């Protein structure tokens, strides 16, 4: 029998971006809030400081800030016919761990979803007709519109202090910004980061080709900034250790730098680390949750009663907890029925490396989001009927780091070892840049999450099982983008270039890093038979459980998810504060 703790108003599972946002919003509303974080504490001074953080091997290669598969992992298979096997060592995606979550070690690309993306199914049906949707594709509308989310996108951008340039202010196109973005009421809080050489020549080429280059919206600050919570940040010094690392300079927006310093000072907020939630406990009528059961650092099982439960873990951990707790009907791929685990999606990326023997790029000079971008081939700009796919991508040239173990692009034909490799690294380190395509991934009936029949985690619970593979629609999308990227590469006339994109024979490979932008499994929507949470991220069946994060995405965006995840968290927090708390009930 688990020991019972004193009741709290709100328990939050996971103290990353969304846990911190819900934490401060609900604590500011006067509620007593407890956050349970399964990983370690991560303090800017104690844990993330210079020079120890500037260690490519420890953090970049050995994943020192990530969740260890030994502690928690998933099993993966390509299709319903296969046996899933554990993701034993990290590769394709890197779940965060500890206070701040992935918000500690992200690169800081901060996008808004496009208006079209948030109502994708309706957009496709209205503009192109049902015939363009391939059999087995299960895309949906999100149930919330861009107009409704706009103030919350802005709020998150202003909490972070995003550096960027607006392209669409209230419907009026702004030179130098992204003309294809949804309308925004205000410009970004800070001007863009300085442009590096790769961004300059990419932007010049793009402009000459008739495209509309703009600086990537960055959670790396271009100037000193104080946000609404009184948190102070300083300008990024381009140290080149951003993604996979904590920021040594209070210059990357993170839960620590933007929220937690203020939140920790509030007497009605507390948090516990090394406390792993095993399940949400339900009342006997299963209409409400009574709290959560967790294991603390000593291995003791503890019941924490709460009036409100916020799941704010990483995308697939939210889904895992819903399945383990019996909240919502589990999705069954064979019948297409059920909702929890449905519509798992990933992200389709590809890239081209360009080599210039006479240019110095100084690749070690980098911010996590120092990039120039074009959005001319975004979801809202492509004729899906003509091109034969649904989706889109942003194309960019970024320079984020020059760490030599991992960032060593070499021309085609260079040996992977021996004298030829040794000569190659000398000739080409510092003389290459890349152009990447960062694209959407649609959802499909047979790409989903459920409980594994064989493998168990260290607590004896069934592991989460991922069934996923690449589909022809998304491969056509990335091949389309390849043709666009390569035309820009040719325009730049490099000494040589080499491309890497998924092709017709590509299957999902869990070994090379691709992206941690996993989405879906607890998708939002307006129909309880098709979604796990309603438009306010409240579970349909258990009204005092809300589920944050990218698990709510019904299919993946073409963008990095954090801007939209942040906006959804503020949107949900607003509904809880201004509606739910007065009269706790299903909000939709």
């Amino acid at each position, binding site marked *: 029998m688990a020991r019972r703790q004193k009741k709290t108003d709100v328990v939050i599972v996971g103290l990353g971006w969304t846990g911190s946002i819900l934490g401060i919003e609900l604590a500011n509303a006067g509620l007593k809030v407890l956050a349970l974080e399964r990983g370690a504490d991560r303090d800017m001074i104690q844990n993330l400081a210079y020079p120890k953080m500037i260690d490519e091997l420890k953090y970049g290669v050995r994943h020192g800030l990530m969740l260890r598969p030994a502690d928690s992992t998933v099993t993966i298979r390509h299709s319903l016919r296969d*046996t899933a096997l554990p993701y034993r060592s990290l590769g394709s995606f890197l779940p965060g761990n500890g206070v701040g979550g992935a918000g500690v070690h992200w690169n800081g690309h901060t996008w808004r979803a496009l208006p079209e993306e948030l109502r994708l199914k309706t957009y496709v049906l209205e503009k192109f007709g049902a015939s363009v949707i391939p059999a087995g594709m299960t895309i949906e509308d999100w149930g919330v519109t861009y107009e409704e989310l706009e103030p919350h996108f802005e709020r998150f951008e202003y909490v972070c202090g995003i550096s960027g340039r607006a392209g669409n202010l209230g419907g009026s196109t702004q030179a130098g910004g992204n003309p294809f973005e949804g309308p925004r009421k205000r410009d970004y809080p800070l001007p863009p980061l300085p442009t590096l050489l790769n961004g300059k020549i990419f932007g010049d080429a793009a402009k000459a080709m008739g495209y509309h280059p703009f600086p990537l919206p960055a959670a790396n600050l271009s100037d000193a900034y104080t946000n609404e919570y009184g948190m102070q940040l300083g300008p990024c010094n381009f140290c080149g250790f951003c993604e996979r690392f904590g920021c040594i300079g209070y210059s990357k927006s993170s839960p620590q730098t933007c929220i937690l310093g203020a939140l920790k000072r509030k007497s009605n907020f507390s948090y516990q680390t090394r406390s792993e939630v095993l399940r949400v406990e339900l009342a006997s009528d299963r209409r409400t949750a009574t709290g959560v059961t967790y294991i603390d650092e000593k291995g003791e099982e503890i019941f924490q009663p709460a009036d409100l439960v916020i799941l704010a873990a990483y995308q697939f951990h939210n889904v895992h907890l819903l399945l383990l707790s019996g909240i919502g009907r589990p999705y069954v791929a064979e019948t297409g029925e059920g909702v929890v685990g449905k519509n798992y999606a990933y992200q389709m990326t590809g890239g081209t490396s360009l080599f210039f023997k006479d240019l110095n790029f100084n690749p070690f000079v980098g911010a996590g989001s120092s990039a120039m971008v074009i959005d001319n081939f975004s979801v809202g700009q492509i004729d899906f009927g003509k091109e034969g796919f649904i989706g889109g991508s942003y194309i960019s040239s970024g320079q984020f780091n020059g760490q030599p173990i991992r960032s060593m692009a070499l021309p085609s034909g260079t040996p992977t070892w021996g004298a030829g490799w040794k000569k190659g690294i000398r000739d080409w380190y510092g003389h290459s840049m890349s152009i990447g395509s960062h694209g959407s991934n649609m959802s499909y009936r047979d790409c989903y999450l459920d409980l594994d029949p064989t493998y168990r985690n260290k607590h004896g619970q069934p592991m989460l099982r991922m069934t996923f593979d690449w589909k022809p629609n998304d491969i056509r999308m990335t091949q389309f983008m390849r043709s666009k990227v390569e035309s820009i590469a040719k325009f730049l006339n490099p000494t040589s270039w080499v491309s890497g994109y998924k092709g017709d024979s590509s299957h999902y490979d869990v070994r090379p890093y691709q992206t941690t932008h996993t989405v879906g499994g607890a998708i939002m929507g307006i129909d309880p038979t098709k979604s796990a949470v309603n438009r306010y991220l409240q579970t349909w069946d258990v009204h005092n459980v809300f589920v944050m994060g990218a698990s709510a995405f019904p299919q993946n965006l073409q963008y990095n998810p954090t801007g939209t995840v942040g906006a959804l968290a503020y949107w949900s927090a607003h509904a809880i504060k201004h509606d739910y708390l007065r009269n706790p009930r299903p909000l939709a």
Partner: protein
Amino acid sequence: MSHAFLDGYKPLYFSTTEWAFIRAACARLIPSEGEGPGALEARVPVFIDTQMAGDFGKASDWYMLGPHEPGANPLLGFQSPLTPAQIYRQSIALVDEWCTEQKGKAFAELGPDLQDEVLRDLQARKMPLKAELRDFFVLLLQNTKEGYFADPIYGGNYRMAAWKYIGFPGARGAYLEWANDKGAPYPLGPVSISGDRG
């Protein structure tokens, strides 16, 4: 070139014959000839030995419980029941045995051309290694490059020689005045986490 340090080094993990194999293999993967340090000058074997004796060699961070299917589709990633340290140990023994049978000498005793041939066969999976060991060459090559480029606190990249060779400034961690589109070469040498300057 003298490798007195490596000669005097007492491995934490590897046996004498394994150590000879590691030194010989590293010397071919990043040779000493030509411009820049080879793996031996960079003391890469020390790095690999230290890694095998530590958390990486023990797969401390990895999920290692069964059931295991080491012969599964490689796209599903590492599936061996063996730790990296065990994979090195068993693979080195098998490669040496194979070299002795096929070429008359252990790997470390072969000439450079034959060593290269053996490494190429390993990389191309032409060597009869069982499924549990199929990641050996990938690990060996990856760990060799890690030792070449990681901060010197891990035992390789001696005197930051690999960083100086390619022009990586190490742990300087501050480039704001270089954040521009001018493309001028960066003039300063590296610093390490320990504060050494190169």
